């Protein structure tokens, strides 16, 4: 399975290198921004629906509210997971270490309590 990335690299260089060295975090920035936008809109819609259901006297509303709160809590969790994957792909050792430690703490603290 020994691949030789050096043979492919020169062809890409004129375009890829300046961009990559100037803004290595651009892709992660876009992904995180996307997670934040989708997560916030989704949980806000679910929370608002829950409040409306409760105002109409439907007991289901409380369950919907809890789903909304869990969705909200999933936003930072998925941001860290995505950052970990990105750090591994970019072989950024410092950030692999940092995001792995934080992921470990969250798994230990959050999953142990919620499950």
């Amino acid at each position, binding site marked *: 399975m020994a691949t030789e990335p050096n043979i492919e690299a020169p062809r890409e260089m004129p375009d890829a290198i300046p961009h990559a060295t100037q803004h290595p*975090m651009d892709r*992660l*920035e876009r992904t*995180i*921004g996307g997670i*934040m*936008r989708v*997560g*916030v809109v989704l*949980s*806000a819609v679910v*929370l*608002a629906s*829950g*409040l409306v259901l*409760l*105002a109409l006297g439907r007991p289901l509303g*409380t369950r919907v*509210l*809890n789903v*909304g*709160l869990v969705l*909200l*809590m999933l*936003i*930072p*969790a998925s*941001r*860290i997971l995505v*950052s970990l994957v990105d*750090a591994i792909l970019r072989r950024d050792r*410092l*950030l692999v270490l*940092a*995001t792995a*430690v*934080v992921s470990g*703490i*969250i798994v230990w*603290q*959050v999953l142990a*309590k*919620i499950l």
Partner: protein
Amino acid sequence: MSLFTELATFAAGAFAGGLGTLLGLGGGVILMPFLNKVLGLSLDQASGISVITIIATSSAASASPARLKLANLRLGMLLEIFTTTGGVFGLWWFGQTSDATKEQIFAWVLALIALVVLSRLGKRNVILDPTIDVGLLGGRFEEAESGGEVAYRVRRPVVAFAASFFAGVVSNFGIGGGILKVPALNTWCGVPIRAAAATSALMLGATALIIAADRFSHGQIVPELAAAAVLGVLAGTQVGAWFQHRTKARTHKIALIVILVIVSAIYFSGVRR
């Protein structure tokens, strides 16, 4: 739960979210005294709702591409090790501390931060030559007030680590921790206040998640109030983001001091009563 309580919580959330986004506080420092002192929720219940709104503020603030550009992702992810560790330590420590003691610590913490910000009111940390090497953790961004791209290096990383740990500990008060990180990063580590605020906002979510999950699992979160507060905060965040680029850094600092002093005074007087 009365409709009036929910509407009041929504309004308080909107106010907290607006100012929180503007100052990089997460808004909890305003929402906490409201839930705790006005609505009469316990410290644990109030901080539970407050940290949930912090997840919302943090996420909404970082959803804007302009604000993500200000944030220093590398620095934020590294500091998150210390904020989350501090958060877990705080959970354990506060679990065996009385509410009266917690309130007193809260008041002292806020007063001390206000003093630190006050002592550095006139200083700017931006390096105007954007061609410098910013090092492993530094960053650069566009700023209209300085007229172009600005760059900065991160000095004294150990101070940033320590401040992040303490920020994680005090997150148990439902105040996010931006309130400690932003002044520390700005005052001692040379990070411009806007970059410090954006970086702090981004990483607030992880610690808030840990504390929210703890309160959630203990049934201390009133879902209706949490939802009203979150929706209020999200509405307020939009307004805060609009004002961000239309006010000066010095104005941010003065507003920060005023809020810190008021909330600190509320908790000091509460202890005496």
